């Protein structure tokens, strides 16, 4: 009896504690989610009552070349970002393995870029990449050339990929480093006895055994690419010719600049579906179940 009462009290406390989270979620997630779903099938301009329009917003969004361009831009970004971010993260992870004393300090330093303000970073990189900025001044002095980092469609996307990669490489590196720590040394010793070259060890042992961490980084990279806003907004303004316009910027401008929130709601749903689909495809293609026998 006594035991039952104690359990009941604990349940009550647990429920109460969970309730605060549930209330928070209901207000800031569930309500906006249903409102978004409602908006996406209606016509609403902030001050009137939403009028049901069925698939009108869907058709309009799928026929909007600017929106389709913004989705394509995500793929263009990923093509540049993933190799840079993975390459950089692997270098960080392998580098950390060779750091003796002060490893925690070095790891924290890598995280600094990740916690820095995106706005501040973007403003600094805008100056660095400017056609009259220090990077181009250096290139002009050495090679007599200036690179149009922010005015050429491909280079502008590369510039954004470099800035975002700089921000996340340390974070991804720490994830990979945690994976490296879990690989038993014995496997490498056995491979060495079999005269496996460093490249073979990397391709046959390290990368396969890091699959879980690599997948995690890949999923994070996909999420970053769909959530991109600050860097293109401040560095290129989405240009030149919408070539660096990300979906989030498109949604923001449609909702709050063009004052078409219903259209923007449909865009955000399609972007969520696209990001989910891309993650599923990536997992199907690259995820492996790795077990140490």
């Amino acid at each position, binding site marked *: 009896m006594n035991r039952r009462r104690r359990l009941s009290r604990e349940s009550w*406390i647990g429920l*109460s*504690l969970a*309730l*605060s989270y549930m*209330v*928070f979620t209901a*207000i800031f997630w569930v309500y906006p989610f249903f409102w978004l779903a409602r908006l996406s099938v209606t016509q609403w*301009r*902030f*001050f009137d009552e939403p009028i049901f329009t069925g698939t009108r917003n869907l058709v309009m969004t799928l026929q909007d070349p600017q929106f389709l361009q913004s989705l394509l831009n995500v793929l263009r970004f990923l093509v540049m970002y993933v190799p840079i971010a993975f390459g950089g993260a692997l270098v960080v992870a392998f580098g950390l393995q060779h750091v003796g004393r002060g490893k925690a300090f070095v790891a924290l330093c890598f995280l600094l870029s990740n916690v820095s303000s995106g706005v501040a970073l973007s403003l600094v990189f*805008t*100056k*660095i*990449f*400017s*056609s*009259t*900025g*220090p990077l181009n001044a250096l290139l*002009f002095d050495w090679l007599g050339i*200036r690179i*149009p980092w*922010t*005015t*050429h469609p491909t280079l502008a996307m590369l510039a954004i990929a470099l800035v975002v990669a700089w921000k996340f490489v340390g974070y991804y590196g720490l994830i990979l480093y945690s994976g490296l720590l879990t690989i038993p040394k014995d496997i490498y010793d056995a491979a060495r006895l079999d005269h496996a070259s460093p490249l073979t060890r990397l391709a046959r042992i390290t990368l396969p055994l890091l699959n879980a961490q690599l997948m995690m980084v890949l999923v994070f990279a996909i999420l970053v690419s769909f959530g991109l806003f600050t860097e293109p907004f401040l560095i*290129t*303004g989405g*240009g*030149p*010719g*919408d070539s660096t316009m990300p979906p989030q910027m498109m949604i923001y*401008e449609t909702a*709050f*600049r*063009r*004052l078409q929130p219903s259209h923007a709601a449909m865009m955000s749903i399609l972007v969520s579906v696209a990001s989910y689909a891309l993650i599923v495809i990536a997992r199907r293609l690259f995820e492996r179940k790795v077990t140490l026998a």
Partner: protein
Amino acid sequence: MIARRAMLRLGLAGSAALLAGCSPKNAEKRTDRIRLWVAPNEAEEGFWKIAVARWNALGRGLPVSFTTIPTAGSSEDTVLSALVSGNEPDLCTNVFSGFAVQLAALGQVENLAAMPGYGALIARRHMAEITPGWTQDGKVSALPIYSSPTLIWWRADLLEAHGFTAPPRTYEDVYAFCERYGRARSRYGMQVAAGRSWADRWFDFISFYYAASGGQPYLEGARALYDNAAGRQAAGFMNHMFRKGWTALDFDAEEPLVSGLAAGGVRGPWDVERFARIYPETLARIEVGPMIARTAASPGPGATFSDSKGVVIFKSSKVGRQAFDFLAWVLGEEDLNLLWLQRTGLSPARGDLLDNPHFAGYYRTSPIGRAYAAHVSNARPPALSEYTIDIQKIMTGRLVEPLMTGQKSPEEALAQAVAQTDQMLKVQM
């Protein structure tokens, strides 16, 4: 046990506070005072503090209380949020004409032209030449408080060192100066492209277009008009500057007038205060020239773009008439107009700035301010359109950027930009 109860109470109190924060929509509007939002900057806030105190002391109408627009980002977002949640004030300043048109299309702002005393205010403030740019179908959604024409700042010392005793007035003058001053990819005659944002078009192509066309509109209803002689002149000038390498693709790294990276650039009166604070030595060397065109405007100042901000009265206000009385008093009082000028350095939107003895003292001591004041009557605001962003994004992507990179001739770029604008407007309207 006590700790658990305290935690529970804390959790419940937190949830209640969260729910309490969601105030009901369309909160009851006050009728005992006029609520005013002003631009969130020190200079304007200082002006409104004095103006509101004087009004309240006079007791001529309902008392006014003001705050700065509570924004961390753009004023437009904050105003929209306030309107949606029903927390908007009665009056709001810092509204650009395109946003005012959007608000009017959504039925959120009053037609100020229908307010009693509107005609008298326009006459008293000498705004007859200014208001047409703010009138659409006979309706005025926002009344301009100030008008900031765009003009070209030149480094007088650099002009003089290269044989120019006065700022360039025509394209040929600029070319002649660039020929002498420019150095391949390291020193430029003039900053031509203002930036990559849609709003930057006000400070390059649209300014050049107004100067070339004598202030003719670039948009009428659902039709873009700038594929004409003036558009070809303005685009031709920009194209020539980029092809010759007399201007850079961007000047994001630094303020080019300070180092002399560029000797000239389009600037507004708001830059005076910025330069006075950060680059006072450069400001002392600046000479303000007119917006350039193929032929110099004569007689008098030529046309240019005006970056103006206006004030709106929201339809939800229960004290709209009284709010307009306050507005008419603030805008109509010459003493307050002078105070505005002294505090902000921005020219009040009135056509008699250089003729009115009230302002003579100020302009005697401010040659740059005088240059801007001379252009207030001839400065044109942006086209009144709900679709300003789309129009200027097309202008950026289809006209200015191809000219920067040389992908298209001015004629091709103009034709493409205008065709795409027309198509976009046809779909939207």
